[in-house]
């Protein structure tokens, strides 16, 4: 869609518009400045990630040393330790379960809600939009106690569903808001045509609108997944036993106050980022087209 292949798009390939002199006449100096700035920015963006990845392959003494080396005695020992000597695998599994459920349920709820907000002018619509904005303002610290109490009375403390439910309250309002904006940009004439063919509102939503909204769905799914994947506060409040930890919380055990085990931490960080990165790669080409909408229309 809006993505450009990494290879240069020659100007003649650009949409059949009038020749754009503005773009064409970039002086070599401007070109160097532009690429130079972007290369620098990209380096800053990936530098810390790269450094952690490099460090994760170093043995402990090399990580602890003050010498700057890119590669030194590369080893998988850190990964082996994290994967086989700790509870990492079960934390990882917990995180996958929680994040996937949050993503799937979150997409479903926010898509239906976003569609209703976009297409129907029902009583309560405006206040619901306001409520969504207000939910973004909730500090975790006010919600955590009463939600803890609710979870406790439902018997959900120290279970994964408690986390899924809590994360849905964070992700769904923002996702619904974003999807609403995207649905707004899909012409209503499509709905009307389908309606004339005898489709009910749910069929229209399912058969016509959802397939068209794939980019936005990808983005909201990505957002919901990441929200759940990286959350710390609820996880540390609701989960009490080691076997139920999620990664975000479990990893903190590698950083005791006085003797942080950086070499294991870096390996664990890489392992944690990989699933998020995979989800990101699926979503990234939709990121721009999908986010356009969310912000623009209230």
């Amino acid at each position, binding site marked *: 869609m809006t993505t450009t292949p990494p290879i240069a798009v020659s100007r003649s390939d650009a949409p059949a518009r009038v020749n754009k002199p503005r773009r064409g006449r970039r002086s070599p100096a401007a070109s160097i400045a532009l690429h130079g700035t972007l290369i620098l920015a990209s380096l800053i963006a990936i530098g810390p990630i790269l450094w952690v990845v490099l460090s994760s392959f170093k043995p402990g003494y090399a990580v602890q040393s003050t010498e700057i080396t890119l590669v030194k005695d590369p080893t998988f020992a850190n990964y082996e330790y994290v994967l086989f000597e700790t509870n990492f695998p079960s934390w990882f599994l917990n995180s996958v379960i929680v994040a996937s459920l949050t993503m799937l349920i979150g997409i479903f709820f926010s898509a239906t809600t976003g569609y209703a907000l976009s297409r129907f002018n029902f009583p309560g619509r405006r206040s619901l939009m306001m409520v969504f904005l207000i939910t973004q303002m909730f500090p975790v610290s006010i919600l955590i106690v*009463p939600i803890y109490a609710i979870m406790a009375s439902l018997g959900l403390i120290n279970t994964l569903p408690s986390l899924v439910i809590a994360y849905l309250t964070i992700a769904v309002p923002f996702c619904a808001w974003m999807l609403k904006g995207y649905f707004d940009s899909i012409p209503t004439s499509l709905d009307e045509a389908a309606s004339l063919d005898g489709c009910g509102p749910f069929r229209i939503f399912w058969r016509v609108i959802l397939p068209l909204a794939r980019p936005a769905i990808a983005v909201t799914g990505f957002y919901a997944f990441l929200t759940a994947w990286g959350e710390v506060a609820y996880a540390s409040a609701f989960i009490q036993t080691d076997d139920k930890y999620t990664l975000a919380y479990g990893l903190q055990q590698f950083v005791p106050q006085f003797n942080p085990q950086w070499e294991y931490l870096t390996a664990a960080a890489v392992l944690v980022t990989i699933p998020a990165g995979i989800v990101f790669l699926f979503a990234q080409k939709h990121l721009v087209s999908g986010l356009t909408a969310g912000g623009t229309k209230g």
Partner: protein
Amino acid sequence: MSTVTAGATPRSSTLRRNWDKHWAAWAMVVPVVAVLAVLIFYPLVNGIWLTFTNQTEANQLAEICTKSITGGEVCKENPNAWSFVGLDNYVNVLTGKIGEFWQWTGTTLIWTVAGVAFHYGLGLGLAVMIHREMRFRGFYRVLLVLPWAVPAFISAFAWKFLFNEQLGLVNSLLNAVGIDSVAWFADKWTALFVAVITNIWLGVPFMMVALLGGLQSIPEELYESAEIDGATPWQRFRNITLPGLRPVSMTVILLGTIWTFNMFPIIFLVTEGQPAGATEILVTGAFRAAFEGIRNYSLASTYGVLILSILLIFSVFYRRVLRKQGEVW
């Protein structure tokens, strides 16, 4: 139908008509509304109520039950049960008797303003650059968005690692050019600096992507005709790009402010409030004050209500300013 039901009560028929017309929409939003009601509104009301009590983990039970030898349960009234204390919590927090409300608020303001200003400024700059046609555009874009894909707590660890006093890359680089190592987390301002840098790194991709989307919705023709009229690049930026981005900008700045204000993991994990709690922002300070040791539910709620009030006042004010400038949002 209307002629037949003319005699029926008007109220029920309105309800009926509303139902017939809107049932589909209501059916679509009802799950979300239900979940929000249970998990946002009930906690909110309950939280506000808690702020007028002195309830903590230790005194929350009205009765203490113990198993007796015969197997039955004996319940006694809790002598130290929680009670209604009026505005005491607010007084304690606002006068600084418990916690450092005003200091945390000050730090939060610096943290938020610095974060949002750099997010927006850098995000806008990168979005404008990457919006142009050029070689490697898609490649740059993937790299620049990458920090977004890294979970916040991982980024927090990564930056804490980079700025570690003994083995961090930053100090090693400083040493390499002949500058002594800096104990980043020993001073309030350097510690806050590290946290702000981490947060900027983390938040720019979202701004960039959102603004890039906004840029794509500005019609190319505007730029062409401006150029024919002889507008300089700066004039085109000021008079076409910025106004065209206005709707997106307003939303992302509002959201960005709210998110940064409540940004928990960075401070919590990167500086841990070091040195000696000087870099706490409101959310982390409140969390520590209320949850370290005996969990103090009423205190946590008091902070929560205060934080929420600040943000509500801010957004009402923000919208009013926008309205004055003719923006209907």
